[in-house]
């Protein structure tokens, strides 16, 4: 036994086993996420189940499990959708109660802007109440009209968001200037009259846009009639139809096409129906912008602090204490940083900014409430130990001879630091930044109280001056996962979306890291230094 241990074999197995265990756990987690997320976009077959008691259920089967406490009896979970007709998206059915299973070719899965999926048979197309086409001919006519309906919907959205949004933006600015003037005691005069005239002009423009909207909405008269299970009919305006598919008749290439389109919609569109439908684009945008902003803040701050600690401060007890404190900062629960962010950044700093520069908007806070800037600052604070420690280690690894060589050439300490030490320590700084970004992208708790919201009305970057709005609240993939998974009114329907969002978040973290790693490797090649 002793001999065996001394041979080293068991220790190799022990180390290998530890690595294997870690890999299996991480791999298993990834596999669960990938499998669940990947299946979300696949157009699954629609099955029509006729039960022995005469009821009919149509929809994809999403789960099959044994009934608890009874051996060999299984039940199915069917996504019948049609929440507006039945009240619930999912129905459990005992397999023993099923009389017949069919795969009807005419079963349509309709994605709409409200109420989730609609599953049924398309029976007619109506225009202003009058039937235009019915039976099998109806679908042909609907398919012809859908693109026009979609572009009409987009046009209305553009007017609402961009044109009317722009008018609102300007009105708000003028209103604030008026309030500012009033606060200073100006109640009349040319300036106020001018502003009032501008307001009136804007009101005119608003009315014109309203009229245009009304006209466009007036065109949305076409509806389709869908016959659902139990003989219920639903009249659905074409304006609400996002997509219609017949999964039972789709070929594999067609399904792949639909899959790709669904993935694209997921990453490029705004969420609908309290985040349980639609895409996650605002959350992707918010996550990336927040991480970038955090990087821009944390890198200079952390690097400068590390330079002082290692290059300038006299090494002694005090510096050691500071170093220990910085290292321990990394172990403070992130929610504590969040609370600090609220107390210091939002209330103290933001509140002061509001009093000084945005007093006309008070009591509505501008910077004195959660926003992307404060969230980024809070995360920068959270990740600064990582950057400091990595930079300090890099500085310690730079040979003394390199600094001496520069000093011996008559360079000052500053010149040495900037021209020799900084380039040599760059790879270490990037290592720290990689770790910081990975940490920040996955952090949720401090964000929840410093500026992340369930649904942000606008992106932090848009077409209105000053284009980047650091005071805006934003959406974040990590919070989105929590919100959709645990705060959603329809958890079952939203569950695949949780996995898809998780996969996306992981992909973004990996992408950000790959970018930083590529930069670091390029720098390393350039300087070919052994110091990591």
């Amino acid at each position, binding site marked *: 036994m002793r001999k065996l241990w001394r041979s080293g074999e068991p220790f190799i197995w022990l180390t290998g086993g530890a690595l294997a265990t870690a890999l299996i756990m991480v791999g298993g987690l990834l596999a669960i996420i990938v499998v669940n997320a990947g299946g979300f976009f696949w157009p699954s077959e629609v099955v029509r189940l006729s039960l022995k008691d005469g009821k009919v259920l149509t929809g994809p089967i999403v789960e099959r499990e044994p009934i608890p406490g009874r051996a060999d009896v299984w039940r199915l979970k069917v996504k019948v959708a049609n929440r507006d007709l039945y009240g619930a998206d999912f129905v459990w059915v005992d397999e023993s109660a099923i009389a017949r299973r069919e795969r009807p070719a005419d079963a349509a899965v309709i994605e709409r802007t409200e109420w989730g999926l609609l599953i049924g048979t398309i029976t007619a197309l109506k225009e202003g109440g009058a039937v235009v086409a019915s039976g099998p001919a109806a679908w042909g006519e609907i398919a012809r009209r859908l693109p026009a309906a979609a572009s009409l919907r987009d046009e209305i959205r553009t007017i609402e968001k961009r044109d009317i949004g722009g008018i609102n933006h300007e009105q708000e600015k003028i209103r604030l200037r008026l309030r500012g003037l009033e606060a200073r005691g100006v109640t009349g005069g040319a300036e106020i009259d001018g502003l009032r005239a501008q307001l009136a002009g804007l009101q005119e423009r608003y009315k014109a846009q309203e009229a245009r909207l009304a006209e466009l909405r007036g065109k949305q008269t076409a509806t389709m009639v869908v016959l659902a299970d139990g003989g219920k009919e639903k009249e659905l305006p074409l304006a609400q139809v996002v997509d219609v598919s017949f999964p039972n008749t789709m070929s594999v290439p067609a399904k792949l096409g639909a899959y790709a389109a669904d993935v694209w919609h997921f990453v490029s569109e705004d969420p609908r129906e309290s985040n349980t439908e639609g895409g996650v684009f605002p959350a992707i945008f918010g996550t990336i912008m927040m991480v970038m902003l955090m990087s821009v803040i944390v890198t200079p701050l952390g690097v400068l602090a590390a330079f002082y600690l290692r290059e300038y401060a006299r090494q002694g007890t005090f510096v050691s204490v500071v170093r220990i404190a910085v290292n321990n900062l990394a172990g403070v629960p992130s929610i504590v940083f969040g609370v600090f962010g609220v107390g210091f950044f939002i209330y103290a700093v933001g509140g002061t900014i509001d009093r000084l520069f945005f007093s006309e908007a008070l009591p509505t806070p501008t910077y004195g409430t959660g926003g992307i800037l404060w969230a980024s600052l809070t995360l920068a604070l959270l990740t600064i130990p990582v950057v400091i420690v990595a930079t300090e280690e890099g500085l310690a690894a730079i*040979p003394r*001879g*390199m600094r001496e060589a520069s000093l011996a*050439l*008559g*360079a*000052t300490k500053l010149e040495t630091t900037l021209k020799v030490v900084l380039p040599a320590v760059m790879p270490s700084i990037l290592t720290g930044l990689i770790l910081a970004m990975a940490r920040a992208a996955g952090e949720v708790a401090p964000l929840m109280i410093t500026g992340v919201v369930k649904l942000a009305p606008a992106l932090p970057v848009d077409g209105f001056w000053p284009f980047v709005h650091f005071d805006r609240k934003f959406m974040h993939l990590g919070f989105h996962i929590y919100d959709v998974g645990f705060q959603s009114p329809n958890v079952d329907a939203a569950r695949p979306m949780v996995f898809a969002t998780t996969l996306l978040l992981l992909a973004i973290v990996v992408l950000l890291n790959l970018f930083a790693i590529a930069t670091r490797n390029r720098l390393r090649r350039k*300087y070919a*230094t052994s110091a990591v």
Partner: protein
Amino acid sequence: MPVTLNPNASAASIMETPMVEIERLSLWYGAKQALKDVGMSVPKHRVTAYIGPSGCGKSTLLRCLNRMNDLVDGVRIEGAIRIGGTDISDPALDVTELRKRVGMVFQKSNPFPKSILENVAYGPRILGVRNRTDLDGIVERSLRAAALWEEVSDRLHESALGLSGGQQQRLCIARAIAVEPDVLLMDEPCSALDPIATAKIEELMLELKNSYTIVIVTHNMQQAARVSDYTGFMLLGELVEFGVTRQLFTNPRDRRTEDYITGRFG
């Protein structure tokens, strides 16, 4: 260039122009005295070697000449050092100006993690040379002077860390002479090199002494005998003997010097 000196002359009576004059120099690291009352003068355009066992203070003495000891905490220095007539121990003296006049090559080659060209151009840039053509000229001249130009002229933009140990050390010499110092200090420049690279550097030193005053610290007595015109033997912080190299090696005046060079200790 062979040096013709009277082998019987004592150090003090040699008719040379002194470049560096050291007077009653003592140095303490904290409470420990590392140099004791050292006095000597280094003649211009000659190679002067310091030999002695490890810890005898020869590197410390060398580093006094460009005030690199300033970087060490708790150093205290007494006495005077004049280089070209200027007292360099004056606290008001700008050490960067001094170091531009007194170049240094270290024991371990320490090129910057930059290209070969940038390594040599580093000093001139610090001095404020911005013109590309001027810089290229300085780089070529320095690399030629360091006998490295033929080997690296086609890869000036590659990393200096890709060079061999001997090439790196010659690059460090080129970097040091790019700012055209008066004095070149060499702290055991060959201790990490193989015999062939060492021979090249020694050859180079004989070449360079036409333009620079060289002070070298070495462990290797043969090296001191081969390259230097004057040698100082140090022991426990004292300069035991200083004189013309040939005389010191063939006819040492001090018993301790004789013991050391004949290998009886050290």
